């Protein structure tokens, strides 16, 4: 492979001619400025990388926190929903007096037939048996 020196053997003379004293001092200060720019750019890069890592950590922590707290919220909601769904079942537990109060006074009574409590209606037309209350 041909180098510049092979193609232009006089290149060192050209470089000596164009790189005079004023250029040498300019080139030295430019080199220092370049190194400072490289250093500055490296610091910026390091800060950017650190910020990116921090963002990732915060993001992951937030995600972790949300995924952990979600079942707790559901568990907290569940007791509120439960009475509504079991509202019908709670009618089981009204007392006998409360049940009798739901009908006109003297129209029915509680009677025990073969060891089971039954609601007996006193008028013939409306007499029927409620097997279970």
């Amino acid at each position, binding site marked *: 492979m041909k180098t510049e020196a092979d193609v232009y053997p006089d290149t060192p003379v050209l470089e*000596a001619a164009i790189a005079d004293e004023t250029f040498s001092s300019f080139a030295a200060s430019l080199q220092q400025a370049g*190194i400072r720019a490289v*250093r500055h750019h490296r610091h910026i890069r390091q800060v950017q990388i650190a910020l990116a890592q921090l963002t990732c950590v915060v993001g992951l922590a937030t995600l972790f926190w949300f995924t952990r707290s979600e079942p707790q919220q559901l568990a907290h909601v569940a007791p509120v929903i439960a009475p509504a769904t079991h509202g019908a079942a709670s009618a089981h537990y009204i007392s006998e007096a409360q049940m009798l109060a739901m009908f006109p006074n003297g129209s029915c009574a509680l009677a025990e037939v073969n060891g089971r409590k039954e609601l007996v209606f006193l008028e013939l037309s409306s007499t029927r048996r409620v097997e279970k209350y």
Partner: protein
Amino acid sequence: MPPRQPEAALPPLVAFLANRTRRDTAARIETQAEQADREFRDWTRRISRGDEHAFTHFYELYHLRIYKYLLALTRGNEHDAREVLQTVILKAAKSFKVFPDDQRLWAWLCRLSRNAYIDLLRRKNRDSRFVPIDDRSLDFAAAEPSKDRTEQAFADAMAQLPEEEQELVREAYVDKRPLQQLAIEAGSTYKAMESRLGRLRLKLKTNVLTLLRNENRS
């Protein structure tokens, strides 16, 4: 005594050996080229990551090369060439990339140089109080200067020097012979030789810049 090879078998054997040698050589060259590319890529990667030593090496290798290119681009305007060189080096320091080889890196540096020079001309046009009638400077800047124009101008400038002076500068800067030795041979003092070479350098530089400027006019 080894058995005699049949004569017909020799050419294929020779061809086989020649092919094998060629293959081995090609593989070796390819491996060397790959390794050189890898080293170049690693070097540019180190610069892009902010390695100061790698950047210093880059600067030593390329700053004069860029300056020569800029002298051709600016038509021998030293001041502009230096200003653009400064912009290019600082831009390169800030946004260096990874390059697989010298060609790509040089192409990138040339592009940076052209863009920086165009920006400089635009700025100058904006700042100047008078609007030029024939504003072709941006076209000139956008045009790629012919390859090695500075070297061509330098060759012409060297040709303008007397034979003796050409020999002297070559001995001093190409052969790197000690100044003291050159002074003794010329029958002068070290100081006188140093001054003479200084004058020759200045003369060469002036001639190169003048040739580049005149190239613009022609």
